């Protein structure tokens, strides 16, 4: 099993100035939720220019489709679509999601996101905790529902600190 190298993946995306929002549990961790995850989930802006930047990153980290013995590489047409591209890379698993939550795109989610500094000039855009909770509530899968109490408690504690 390959351990994810979260910072390296995020740095690679930032280096190419890929417009993307972290939407998985990594988003929750960066906002203070003590949850864990083994992959990086992003919703990327599906313009030709941004997909080209994302493709450059994916080539650099040797991204291929996971769970597919043909070791296929993602293409621009894949990334321009609404589907979920579940990839493995030199730095761990990366899911590039065209849409989430019943058809919501980068542009739909951006107003509910915030930019966080990870030091050294590295910034990432993450889906806000409140929206993350709602997305997971609507997804309704057991693993999403199981995370809700921790995410909600993190919102409450963050509010109490202000």
């Amino acid at each position: 099993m390959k351990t994810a190298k979260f910072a390296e993946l995020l740095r690679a995306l930032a280096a190419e100035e890929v417009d993307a929002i972290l939407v998985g549990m990594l988003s929750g961790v960066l906002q203070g939720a003590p949850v864990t995850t083994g992959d990086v989930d992003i919703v990327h802006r599906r313009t030709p220019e941004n997909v080209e930047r994302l493709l450059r990153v994916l080539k650099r980290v040797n991204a291929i489709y996971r769970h597919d013995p043909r070791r296929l590489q993602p293409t621009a047409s894949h990334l321009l679509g609404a589907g979920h591209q579940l990839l493995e890379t030199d730095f761990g698993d990366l899911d590039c999601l065209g849409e989430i939550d019943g058809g919501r795109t980068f542009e739909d989610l951006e107003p509910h996101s915030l930019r966080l500094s990870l030091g050294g000039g590295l910034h990432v855009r993450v889906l806000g905790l409140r929206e993350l909770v709602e997305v997971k509530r609507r997804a309704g899968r057991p693993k999403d529902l199981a995370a809700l109490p921790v995410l909600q408690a993190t919102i409450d504690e963050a509010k109490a600190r202000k």
Partner: protein
Amino acid sequence: MSDSPRTTDMTDSVDARGVDRAQIRRMLAWSPAERLQWLQEFMESVTEIRRLNEDRKVC
């Protein structure tokens, strides 16, 4: 004075849904970079434990 170790009253830190609020407060006191480092170290520990046990039979 007792030699027994001091126990912690969990009711102060764990809420009714079983969420450890103290852990959340500790995470919130960290920077996003420190939170990322926490996750990285956790995942590396998990990988190491799995590696050390990969030859063990699963019942």
